[in-house]
């Protein structure tokens, strides 16, 4: 039997996840909603045995316009729901009621938590929640999730909720269409009228659901009804429906709210700071400080200190020798021993890589990310960097994956999920794989280039950034779909909640260990097989003519390139060894570093691309990136030679 659940639904940033923690026990399960890349959190309700609580992604309204909203729509349509718990921001009552009207129309058992009551009170707002409750026909309860205020009353009412009989009256063409459609709709978990309205407003999830549950003839009838309603309206059906609800919400808000001191948003400290952080001038130094602190925490402390401690000391000096001798003691010198603790061993390479090299980086990143997320700074970061990304057909939301890419491209590829649509995710994935060097590689590259000259570093940076911009610019034109404009809500800046950040970090880490670490292990196993089958030396030899003839590098560097694909930092390290032996000229170093940077990061990242975007996309990207990296490297070799480099 499937457990019944209570779905938390509400706008982004209203305190759903804090409330979720209050309603569930310790353990939360974060997973992708089936068939999507959207995270949904589930946990057992601590106040109702056998009932699950689902934390859905934020919605502004339905029809769903983003993948996040679609998931929420699917939860509402498909899950065996015991109740809907809408979480709303008390200080934005009008908007909260706009969504409440839509949810109440579904006529499922429902309650509304007016959260952030503390902030509403601080602004002098007094809300008559009994009046609202009567109007909507659902319990309305004030809460302050962060302090746990109002939770007991909320859980109490959730145990006994019943379905409201809420309906709004829409302009005639819409009423007519809704009434004509409703009888033809198969039974769903929401009221037929609500489903009809969703369908009329063009919600993709409702359409998909109807597609699955009706025959072609019925669908034709539905489509005709919708077209007819649209013909007589001068605005889109969706807009008319929404305006009707908004008119109701306006009235309900005006009746329920009385504000004493007309305190303005501008007066609070968080709001003033928030204003500064998005300011065209003051925002920039703040941005610089935030990025620097983040770089320091993730790049220097995480990727430097912690990795050093774990990889060199713990794994390199203690764990791995111990593990190796243990396995050798038990298994002797066998293939299995090699498989576990050999050069390409599951433990010595795969686990060491996943736990000692990547884990510290992602942990520090998740903490930094959680703090930015919880403080409300993230949308401001997107606003400030929007211009830069607009130039390559993206919007400011792309800043996060791109910055994280400097830590670990594999993880960054995963975070492209926060982007609005498929097109943006595809573009950022490509740019990450092609032109963003990860921390492991960046260290070696910078070290080697610095040993040549400042000019060499500038050439490298110039070419890599140039390729990034050019490919971004081109991809924006070639890929179908339009650039999506930035549209963000800027919540007031708040002091991040330690527990919220920690719980989110832990849930994400669990996810990393369960879903990403296996990729590193599979990658290692592939390497091991290639090595044992003797394919590696063959590949190295096959690549030699290209490396010597076209790129002008010594034959030995062919191995470094192959290793570079398997682990990008290995590749750079391989070239580093050649340089130390005095085998590379400055020209060769610049060409080698540029080519290696443009190469695909590592096996794990390719698998991550395949998992997130599909195997076909991953193969196409490889087919694009390898030749492109070689092309740019070869051209650079010729250009620099012509300029008199040697």
């Amino acid at each position, binding site marked *: 039997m499937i457990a019944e659940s209570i779905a938390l639904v509400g706008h982004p940033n209203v305190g759903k996840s804090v409330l979720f923690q209050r309603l569930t026990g310790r353990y939360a399960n974060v997973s992708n909603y089936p068939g999507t890349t959207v995270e949904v959190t589930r946990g057992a309700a601590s106040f109702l045995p056998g009932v699950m609580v689902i934390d859905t992604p934020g919605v502004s309204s339905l029809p769903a*316009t983003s993948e996040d909203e679609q998931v929420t729509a699917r939860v509402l349509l498909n899950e065996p729901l015991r109740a809907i718990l809408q979480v709303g921001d008390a200080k934005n009552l009008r908007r909260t009621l*706009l969504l409440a009207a839509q949810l109440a129309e579904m006529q499922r058992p429902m309650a509304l938590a007016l959260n952030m009551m503390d902030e509403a009170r601080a602004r002098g707002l007094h809300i008559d929640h009994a009046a609202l409750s009567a109007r909507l026909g659902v319990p309305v309860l004030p809460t302050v999730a962060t302090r746990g205020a109002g939770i007991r009353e909320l859980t109490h009412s959730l145990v006994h909720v019943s379905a409201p009989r809420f309906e709004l009256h829409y302009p005639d063409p819409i009423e007519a269409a809704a009434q004509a459609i409703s009888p033809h709709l198969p039974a769903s978990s929401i009221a037929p009228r609500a489903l009809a309205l969703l369908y009329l407003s063009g919600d993709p999830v409702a359409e998909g659901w109807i597609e699955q549950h009706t025959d072609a003839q019925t669908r034709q009838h539905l489509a005709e009804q919708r077209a007819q309603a649209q013909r007589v309206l001068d605005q889109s059906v969706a*807009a008319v429906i929404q305006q009707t609800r908004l008119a109701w919400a306006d009235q309900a808000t005006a009746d329920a709210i009385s504000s004493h001191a007309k305190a303005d948003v501008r007066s609070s400290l968080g709001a003033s700071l928030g204003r500064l952080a998005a*300011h065209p001038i003051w925002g920039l130094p703040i941005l610089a400080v935030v990025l620097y602190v983040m770089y320091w925490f993730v790049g220097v402390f995480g990727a430097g200190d912690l990795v050093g401690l774990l990889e060199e000391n713990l794994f390199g000096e203690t764990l791995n020798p111990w593990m190796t001798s243990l396995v050798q003691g038990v298994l002797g010198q066998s293939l299995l021993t090699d498989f576990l603790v050999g050069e390409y061993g599951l433990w010595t390479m795969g686990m060491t890589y996943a736990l000692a090299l990547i884990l510290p980086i992602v942990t520090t990143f998740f903490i930094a990310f959680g703090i930015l997320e919880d403080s409300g700074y993230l949308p401001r970061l997107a606003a*400030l960097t*929007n211009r830069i990304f607009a130039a390559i057909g993206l919007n400011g939301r792309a800043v996060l994956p791109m910055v994280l890419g400097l830590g670990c491209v594999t993880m960054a590829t995963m975070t492209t999920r926060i982007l609005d649509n498929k097109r943006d995710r595809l573009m950022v994935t490509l740019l990450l794989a092609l032109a963003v060097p990860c921390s492991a590689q960046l260290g070696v590259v910078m070290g080697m280039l610095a040993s040549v000259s400042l000019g060499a570093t500038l050439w490298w940076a110039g070419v890599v950034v140039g390729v990034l911009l050019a490919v971004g610019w081109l991809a924006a034109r070639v890929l179908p779909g339009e650039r999506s404009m930035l*549209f963000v*809500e800027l919540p007031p800046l708040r002091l991040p909640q330690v527990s919220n950040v920690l719980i989110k970090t832990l849930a994400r880490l669990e996810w990393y260990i369960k879903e990403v670490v296996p990729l590193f292990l599979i990658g290692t196993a592939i390497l091991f097989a290639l090595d044992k089958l003797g394919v590696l030396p063959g590949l190295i030899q096959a690549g030699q003519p290209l490396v010597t003839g076209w790129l002008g590098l010594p034959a030995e560097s062919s191995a470094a390139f192959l290793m570079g694909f398997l682990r990008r930092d290995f590749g750079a390290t391989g070239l580093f060894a050649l340089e130390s032996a005095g085998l590379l000229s400055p020209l060769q170093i610049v060409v080698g570093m540029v080519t290696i940077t443009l190469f695909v990061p590592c096996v794990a990242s390719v698998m991550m691309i395949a998992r997130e975007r599909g195997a076909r996309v991953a193969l196409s990207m490889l087919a694009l990136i390898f030749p492109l990296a070689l092309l740019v490297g070869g051209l650079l070799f010729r250009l620099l030679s012509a300029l008199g480099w040697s």
Partner: protein
Amino acid sequence: MKRNLLSRLTQSSERSSAQPRTLAEVRPGRMARIIRFSSASPRWQERLLAHGVAPGCVVRVAQHQPVTIIQIDHTELGFERELARAIEVEAL
């Protein structure tokens, strides 16, 4: 290049106009009442409506750079100036 120049020219004329006609022309710090959404695609209209931005309501413009930020009720919304140009307003 050409487009940049063009948009810069229109921007400066937007600033100097005494009677703003679109949200993009409203000076930072001023209030305006929304009259209608002109050329905004339905998708953006719905986004705006979902945030309670509808004809008849009053918003305060906080800034236009690097993005337009408006305040409605107790929420701040940030979007690109292109969208602000598609929102017709009257000055208050």
